[in-house]
C-alpha cells in the first residue's frame, strides 16, 4: 500500500487532536533513508499522550538513533476516530517521522507496558496490513519484535512475535540490529537469523520452543529446539552512569501525561514487597551517581526547556545520594524557576528537610502507599512500615501545610480477612484524629483523607505469583465492606474496577493458549481495554466462553509450588527458590529486611552491575 500524503492531510481535518499524528516536535530525529540501514518502527500500543510519557521509549528511541546505521521512527495507537479514517480511506498505519507505512520497515517493535494493551498490538498490526501470527509471515514482512515490562511473561503474545527482548534494551537492541544487518548482507533467511538472535543477551524466540499441556490445562513441558537456550536470562545495563541516556528527548506540542523531564536515578528496588513485580524483575539494584545525574539534569533543562524535573525510580527515598543530589540541583534550579518532584515516597523516609526541598507550595496534598490497613497484612506483604511510621510521615506533611492525604491500598491480598479490610478506614480515621490533635493544625482548616484501593493481581516473578485472585463477587463485596466501614465524612473512597483487574490477572499468568482468545477478541473489535470508555467485560466473558477457555483457571487458581509455570524459561535474576521462600514467609507473616540492611540472597546480583545494594 502506498501512503497517500494528500489523503492523509485531508483526514487530519476529521479527527480529534490531529497533533497526535504529525510528528515534527522539537527534538524529533528525522533521518533520511540510506543504503544498508536498518529501519525500525518503534510502536507504543496506546495513545500518543501515553506513549510519549514512557521513559523506556525515550531511551530506546535515542539509543537506536544514536547508531548511524539505524533509523528509528515512532508510531502510536491511533484513536478510534483516526482508525476509522484510516480504514475508510484504505491508508495503512504509518510512522510520525517520515509517514512511512509500518510494513515498509525492516523491524516493527512494540513496547508492551501493561497487559491490557495486547489487543491494541494486534489492532496496530492489522492496521499495518501485517499478518498477526508469526507463522503466517514470510520473508517479505518486517521482523516483529516485542519488549517492555510485560515480556517477563509474554506467553499470551508469544505466537505473534518473532523475537521478544527480555530486560533492558539500550545495549542489546542496537546489537540485535547489527546482527540483522549482518544476516541481511550474508543473505541469511529469517529462520537462520532467529536462531542466531538467541545468542544476543535477553532475546527470546518463541517459535523455537515446543509447549505441551497436561489434561488439566497446566504445562507438561516447555522444550527448546534447534539449539535455543533452555533459559533466557534478561539483559541488564551494568553501569548506568556509562549507559546511553536521552538528555535531548522530544518535547511534544500536545500536553502528555508526564510532561516534564524524567531523570532516572536508579533501577531495581531494595524493598521486596511481595506483590510487586517491578520490585523483583528490575533487580539487581543499581544507582547512578549524583554527580552524573546533576550533569544530566543541566543538559535536559538546556535541551528541552521544561521547568520541572521528576526524579524517577521505584522508591526514590532509598537513593543513597539523595541529599547530595537535591542539594546540588537546588543550587541552580531555584534560580531558573525549575521545580523538582519526587513521585514515590515511602512513609519511613519522608522527612521535613526533604519535603521542604522538593515540594511545591502549591500542592496541597501528598500521597503515601501503606498498601494494607492492618500491621498483620503489612507484614504478610513485607511492606516493612508501621502505623507509627505512617503517622510520623503525616506529621511531616501537616507541618508543611498539607491538608490532603491520599493513601493507596490493595484489596484481595493473600490471607486477607474482613478485619484487614475494616482496618483501612480505621487507619484513615486515625490520620484524621491525628490531624485534629496535631500542633500543626491550621486554624479553621480541615483535612481530607482519600483511600484509593486497587485489586490484587498475582504477577509473575513475585512471591505472590502462586496465589489466586479473589473472584469478582468477593472483590466487590470487599469494596462494599470497606465503603460502609467509613465513619468520617473527611474520608473518601476510590476503587479500581475489579472487572479490569481480573483481565489483567488472566493475561499476567497466561500461557500460549490465550493467543487464540486474543485473536478472537481482536476479530470482535476489542481495543483500548485500559480505557474505561472501551472496556467491556461482558464481551470478554463471551469471548473466553466461545473459545472454551476458563477465566478462573488463570485468575483465581492457587498454583502449587512444584507446577511448571509458563514463564519458568525466563530468568529475571531473582531465583525461584527465593520466591518460594518469600511466599512461605508471607503465610507465616514473617518479614524480610530490605537489601541494604541485610542481603536476603535473591540471586539477582549474579547478573552483575555497579553501585549495587550490597557488594
Amino acid at each position, binding site marked *: 500500500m502506498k501512503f497517500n500524503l494528500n489523503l492523509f492531510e485531508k483526514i487530519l481535518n476529521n479527527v480529534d487532536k490531529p497533533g497526535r499524528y*504529525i510528528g515534527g516536535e522539537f527534538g524529533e530525529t528525522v533521518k533520511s533513508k540510506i543504503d544498508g540501514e536498518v529501519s525500525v518502527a518503534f510502536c507504543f500500543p496506546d495513545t500518543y499522550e501515553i506513549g510519549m510519557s514512557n521513559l523506556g521509549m525515550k531511551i530506546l528511541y535515542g539509543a537506536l538513533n544514536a547508531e548511524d546505521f539505524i533509523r528509528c521512527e515512532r508510531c502510536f495507537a491511533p484513536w478510534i476516530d483516526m482508525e476509522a479514517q484510516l480504514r475508510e480511506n484504505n491508508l495503512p498505519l504509518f510512522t510520525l517521522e517520515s509517514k512511512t507505512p509500518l510494513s515498509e520497515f525492516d523491524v516493527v517493535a512494540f513496547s508492551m507496558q501493561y497487559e491490557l494493551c495486547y489487543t491494541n498490538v494486534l489492532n496496530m498490526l492489522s492496521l499495518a496490513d501485517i499478518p498477526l501470527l508469526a507463522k503466517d509471515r514470510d520473508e517479505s514482512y518486517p521482523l516483529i519484535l516485542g519488549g517492555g515490562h510485560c515480556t517477563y511473561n509474554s506467553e499470551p503474545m508469544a505466537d505473534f512475535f518473532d523475537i521478544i527482548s527480555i530486560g533492558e534494551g539500550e545495549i542489546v537492541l542496537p546489537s540485535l540490529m547489527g546482527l540483522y544487518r549482518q544476516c541481511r548482507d550474508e543473505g541469511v533467511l529469517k529462520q537462520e537469523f532467529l536462531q542466531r538472535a538467541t545468542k544476543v543477551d535477553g532475546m527470546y524466540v518463541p517459535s523455537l520452543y515446543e509447549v505441551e499441556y497436561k489434561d488439566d490445562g497446566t504445562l507438561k513441558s516447555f522444550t527448546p529446539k534447534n539449539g535455543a537456550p533452555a533459559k533466557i536470562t534478561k539483559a541488564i545495563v551494568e553501569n548506568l552512569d556509562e549507559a546511553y541516556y536521552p538528555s535531548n528527548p522530544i518535547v511534544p506540542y500536545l500536553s502528555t501525561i508526564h510532561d516534564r523531564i524524567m531523570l532516572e536515578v536508579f533501577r531495581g528496588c531494595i524493598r521486596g514487597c511481595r506483590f510487586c513485580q517491578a520490585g523483583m524483575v528490575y533487580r539487581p539494584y543499581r544507582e547512578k551517581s549524583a554527580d552524573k545525574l546533576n550533569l544530566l539534569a543541566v543538559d535536559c533543562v538546556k535541551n*528541552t526547556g521544561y521547568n520541572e524535573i521528576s526524579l524517577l525510580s521505584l522508591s526514590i527515598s532509598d537513593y543513597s545520594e539523595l541529599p547530595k543530589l537535591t542539594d546540588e540541583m537546588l543550587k541552580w534550579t531555584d534560580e531558573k524557576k525549575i521545580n523538582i518532584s519526587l513521585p514515590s515516597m515511602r512513609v519511613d523516609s519522608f522527612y521535613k528537610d526533604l519535603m521542604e526541598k522538593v515540594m511545591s507550595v502549591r500542592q496541597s496534598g501528598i500521597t503515601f502507599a501503606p498498601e494494607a490497613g492492618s500491621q498483620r497484612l503489612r507484614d504478610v506483604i513485607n511492606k516493612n512500615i508501621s502505623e507509627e511510621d505512617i503517622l510520623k510521615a503525616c506529621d511531616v506533611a501537616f507541618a508543611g501545610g498539607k491538608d490532603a492525604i491520599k493513601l493507596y491500598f490493595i484489596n484481595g491480598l493473600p490471607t486477607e480477612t474482613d478485619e484487614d479490610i475494616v482496618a483501612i478506614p480505621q487507619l484513615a480515621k486515625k490520620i484524621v484524629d491525628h490531624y485534629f490533635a496535631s500542633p500543626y493544625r491550621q486554624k479553621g482548616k480541615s483535612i481530607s483523607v482519600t483511600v484509593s484501593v486497587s485489586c490484587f493481581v498475582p504477577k509473575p516473578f513475585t512471591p505472590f505469583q502462586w496465589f489466586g485472585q479473589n473472584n469478582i463477587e468477593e472483590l466487590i463485596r470487599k469494596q462494599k465492606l470497606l465503603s460502609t466501614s467509613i465513619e468520617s465524612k473527611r474520608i473518601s473512597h476510590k476503587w479500581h474496577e475489579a472487572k479490569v483487574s481480573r483481565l489483567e490477572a488472566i493475561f499476567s499468568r497466561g500461557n500460549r493458549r490465550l493467543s487464540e482468545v486474543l485473536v478472537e477478541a481482536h476479530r470482535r473489535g476489542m481495543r483500548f481495554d485500559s480505557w474505561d470508555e472501551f472496556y467491556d467485560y461482558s464481551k470478554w466473558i463471551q469471548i473466553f466462553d466461545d473459545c472454551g477457555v476458563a477465566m478462573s483457571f488463570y485468575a483465581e487458581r492457587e498454583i502449587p509450588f512444584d507446577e511448571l509455570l509458563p514463564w519458568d524459561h525466563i530468568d529475571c535474576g531473582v531465583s525461584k527458590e527465593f520466591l518460594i521462600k518469600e511466599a512461605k514467609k508471607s503465610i507465616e507473616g514473617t518479614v524480610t529486611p530490605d537489601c541494604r540492611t541485610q542481603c536476603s540472597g535473591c540471586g539477582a546480583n549474579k547478573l552483575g552491575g555497579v553501585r549495587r545494594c550490597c557488594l
Partner: protein
Amino acid sequence: MLSVRVFFKKQGALSYISHLDLNRAVLRAFARSELPVVYSEGFNPHPRLTFSQPMSLFQESLTEIFDFKVDPDIPYDEIQNKLSAALPKALEITKVAAPVKKLTEITYALYYITIMGDTAKVADILKGEIVVFRSTKSKSEYVDISNQIKSADVINIDGGVRIEAVLSTSPTDYLNPQYIIDYLSKNIEAFDSKILRVKMYDSDMKEFE
C-alpha cells in the same frame, strides 16, 4: 528593557497544533534559547508573552505575531537567531523587530479562503445576508456576519474559488472565517476548504507592524 515583536508563519504541521499548545511551545523555546526574557511579577512568575488573535485548528497563516520583552537589551537579529534555533523547525520566523502599534490595534485581516464549488454561486451568496448560529461562553444566537466582512473578492481557480476576504479581526470584533465556509457548504455544494491568513491591518487598513 526591550520590546520584541516576532512575525512567524503558521503553516503545515503547525496548523494542527492548538493555540494553547503553540503558546507552550514558545515558552519552552524561550527557556532553551536562554534569552533574558522578562517575567511577570507575583506568586507564579511566567514570561510575558502575548499573541495576535489566535487562529483555529487547521487554519494557516503567513503572518502571525507574538510579543515579549528582554532585559538587558540585545540586537534584534541576535534574538531572531537564538529563537529560531530554539523553536521547532515548523515554526518559521519571518521578522523580529520593535512593535510599532499595540496588538489590540489589529482591526482587519486578509484571508484567502479556498473552496471547491461554483464561482458564481459563491459570489452570489457573499453579496447577501449571512446568518449563522454563533455560540460563545455567554450566549448562543443567530447573527448576520456580513457586516464583519469588509470586502470579499471571489476569484475563479482550478476546480473552485478563492475568496480574498478582509474580515474583522480585532479582539472585540473577530470573525472566524470558518463561519463563511460553514455557511457556504450549507447552502451550495462546497467542500475541501482551506483558510490562509495573509495579512493583518490596523483600522486605517495599513499593514500591521
